[in-house]
C-alpha cells in the first residue's frame, strides 16, 4: 500500500527553489487516504493535512512512520526535511506532541525537520503551550 519513495537528491533541495522541489516531488506523489485526512509526500518536502486532534491522530501515526522510514532509507545524505503544515485543519495538544516527538525522532536519525506554513491558530497554540523552541526557526517559510 505504501510506495517506496523516489527522493530528490539533497543538493537539489538545497539549491533549487521550493517550487522546483514540488515539481520534482510530483513525480512520486503518493496519496495514502482520502482528501479529508491525508499526509502527502512531495519529494523531501512533506505536506501534512487533516485532523490532528485526539480524534484523528491515530490515523496520522502510520503515515509519519512511513515518511520517517522512507526518508531515512531514500536519502541518507540529507539532513533537512521541510514539513508543510498548511493543510492541517485542526490540531490540539495531542497533535502537537505527536509532531514534536516525530521531529525529535527524525533528529535522532540525523534528519532536521523544519515545520513551515503554520496557520495562525496553530502558531498561537504552539506559543501558548511553550513548544515554540522546538518547532524550528523557519515557520514563516512559504512553499508556493
Amino acid at each position, binding site marked *: 500500500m505504501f510506495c517506496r519513495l523516489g527522493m530528490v537528491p539533497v543538493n537539489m533541495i538545497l539549491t533549487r527553489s521550493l517550487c522546483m522541489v514540488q515539481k520534482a516531488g510530483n513525480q512520486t506523489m503518493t496519496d495514502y487516504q482520502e482528501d479529508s485526512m491525508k499526509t502527502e509526500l512531495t519529494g523531501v518536502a512533506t505536506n501534512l493535512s487533516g485532523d490532528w*486532534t*485526539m*480524534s484523528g*491522530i*491515530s490515523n*496520522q*501515526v502510520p503515515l*509519519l*512512520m512511513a515518511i*520517517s522510514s522512507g526518508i531515512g532509507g531514500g536519502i541518507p545524505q540529507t539532513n533537512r526535511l521541510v514539513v508543510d503544515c498548511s493543510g492541517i485543519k485542526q490540531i*490540539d*495538544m*495531542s497533535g502537537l*506532541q*505527536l509532531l*514534536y*516527538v*516525530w521531529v*525529535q*525522532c527524525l533528529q*535522532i536519525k540525523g534528519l532536521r525537520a523544519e515545520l513551515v506554513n503554520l496557520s495562525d491558530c496553530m502558531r498561537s*497554540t504552539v506559543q*501558548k*503551550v*511553550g*513548544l515554540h*523552541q*522546538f518547532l524550528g526557526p523557519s515557520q514563516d517559510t512559504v512553499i508556493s
Partner: protein
Amino acid sequence: MSADLSQFFQVFFEESAEHLAEMERILLSIDPHAPDEEELHAVFRAAHSIKGGAATFGFSDMTSTTHTLESLLDRVRHHELGLTAEMVDAFLETKDAIAMLLAGHRDQAPVDLAVVESACGKLRSIEGGSLAAVQIVGTAAVEPDAGSVATGEKEYRILFRPPADLFIRGVRVEPLFEELASLGELSITAQVAVPEDFATYEPEQCCLSWEMVLNSTSSLEELYDIFMFVADEDEIEIQVIEPALKQAAVPSCGLEPSEQKHTSKAAEAPPTLESPGRRLYDRDETAPNAFGRRPADGTEATSIRVGVSKVDQLINQMGELVITQAMLAQTAQQFDPVLYESLHRGMALLQRNTRDLQESVMSIRMMPISFIFSRFPRLVHDLAAKLGKQAELKLVGETTELDKGLIEKLADPLTHLVRNSLDHGIESPEERRLAGKQPGGTITLRAAQTGGRIVIEVIDDGAGLNRSRILQKALENGLSVSDEMADEEVWQLIFAPGFSTAEKVTDVSGRGVGMDVVMKNVQALGGRVSISSESGKGSRVLVSLPLTLAILDGLSVRVGDEIFIVPLNSIIESLQPQPDDINTVSGNTTVRVRGEYLPLLRLSEVYRIREAEERPEHAVVMIVDAEGEQVALLVDELLNQHQVVIKSLEKNYRKVDGTAGATIMGDGHVALILDVGDLVHLWRKGL
C-alpha cells in the same frame, strides 16, 4: 476517542446556573455584620466551581470575571477583609454579570460587556481600597523589601506534570495557561519525554510536562486553584522563588534534552515549599463531578442528568401503557373469573405494577416549587430598594412539588404578581406608619397541594385594591361596570387587557400589560386566578393549577349516554338523596347534606345532554370540592375508577369549557375529564 468538550457544555451550563442560584440565595440571606463562616465558604465554593468549569471549557470571559469575584471572596472568608453591605451588593451584581455571560455562551444571548466591566470594577475598587489599607498597616509593622512589598508581586516557579491520560480525559490545558497569563507575566516551557523509537510511541498518552515562571500578585493558593480541575496534588508543584534564588531558579531558554531533564530533575530541583494542599471542601466538590477529572475508585454518582425530552418520551409511553392496560382489563372482564382465575390474577398484578410504574415515572418530572420561589428574595430585595420601600418576603411550602412543565411556565406570572404586590400593594414606610402599620411590609408566597391541584398564593399586607379607583378606571376604559358589582367581580376587572390604575407608568409596572398576561398564562396551564382584597389590610392572589399534565386517577360517571371522568381527588363523597333533601330556592336546586344546603349542578344542563335522569332522588349526587367550595354534581350512574391519561383537547379538537381534557377509555371511547372548578365557573355564568 473524541476529545470534544462541547458535549459537556450543557452539564456545565446547568451546574453553573445552580451554583449562581445558590450564591444568590446565600448572599441575600447573609448578615454582613455577622456573616456565617460556612455560608461564606459556600459562596466561594460556588464561584470557584464556576471558574474551574469555565476555564476547562475555554470560556475565558467567565473565568476572569469569576476570578475577580473569587479573589475578594477569598479575602473575606479568610478574615483579611470584613464583609460589608456594599460588598454583598457588588457580589450580587457580579453574579448577575456572570449569569449574563453564561447566557451568552449557552443561548447566544447578547452580553453587555459594560455591565460586566462595571461589576468587576466595583470588586476591584473594593479590594483595591482595602488592600491599600492593609498595606499601610503592613508597612508600619514590616521592613519594606526592595519594592516587592509595594506591588505585592512574587515570582513563582510552577512545575506541571500532568498524568498520561490527560488527552484521553479531554482536558484542555490552553485555558489554564491563559488564566495564568492573565495573572501576570508568564513564561512557559514545555518538555516532552521522547521515546527512542517512534514505533513505540503511543499518541494518546501525554508525555508532556511544563515548567513555568510567573510574576504575579496572586497568592499561592490561587495558583493551585487554577489547576484544581485538571491535576492532582502530586502533579502540580508551585514554589515561591526567593529573590536570592531567582537567578538560579529561572529556567534557561535553551532546554536540555528532555530525557535528561526527567532523570535529573528530582535531584536538582530546589526544595519545594510545603504545599498548602486542598481544603476538605475542595476534595469533596471536585472529586466525582469535576469536568475532565477521573472519578475516584468506588465513587458512585447519586444522580444523573437526563434530557427532558427523554423523560417526556417515557411519560408518553407510560400513558400508552396505561391505556393498553385499561383495554386489557376491560376485555378480561368478559371472561369467567372462576374459569380464568390466573388471567384475572395476572390482570390484577399488571394493574398494580402499571400503577407503581406510573407513579415512579411521574415523580421524575416533579420538581419542588423552590425552583421558582428562590428567585423572589433577590427580586424583592432589589425592587424594594428601587422603590424606597421596606418589604420582607416569606416563603411557605417551598418543597411542594409540581410538574416541571408547569414550573417553567409559572415563573413569569408569579414574577408579575410579586412585582405588583410590592409596587402597588405595599405602601411606603411613611404611609404605613400613618396607617398604624409597621414600616416594613410583608409579602407571603405560599404553595400547597390541595386535592388534585396546586394552589399558590401571593399575599401582601399592603393597602389592598382600591375599589372605587378600579371602577372609575374601568369606566374610563369603556368597560361595563356598576357600583352594585360584588367585590369579586370588581377585582376581576384588573385582568382586562390594558387595565392599570397606576398614577404613572414606571419600568416596574403601570403599563397595564401585567395581570391579563398572568391570567392568560395561568389559563393556558389549565389554571385559574382569583383575587381577594380588603382595603387597608392587603390582597391575596390565588393561582390554582392542576397537579400534573399527564395522568390522573378518576371516577367514570354516566350522564345520559355520555361518560365523564371526575378527578378522584375532587370527590368528597357520593350519595343518593332522599326527596326531602332536595329544595328549590329562587329557581336554584339545592341538596341538603348533613344539615348543609349545597347547590346542585346538573351536568346534563351544562352540556345539554338528553335522556339524562332529571330527578335527583333517582340519580347519584357527587359532592365535589371546587377550590374550597362544595358543590353537588348530579350524574346518572357511577361506573368505575380509572387511571386516565390526559389528552389535550385543544391540540386535537378545541377547548371545551369545564373540562381538563379528554381520555381514551379501555373500550376505545373518548371521555371528557371534568375540571370541577372551571365547571362551577361555567355553570354560574349560565345561571
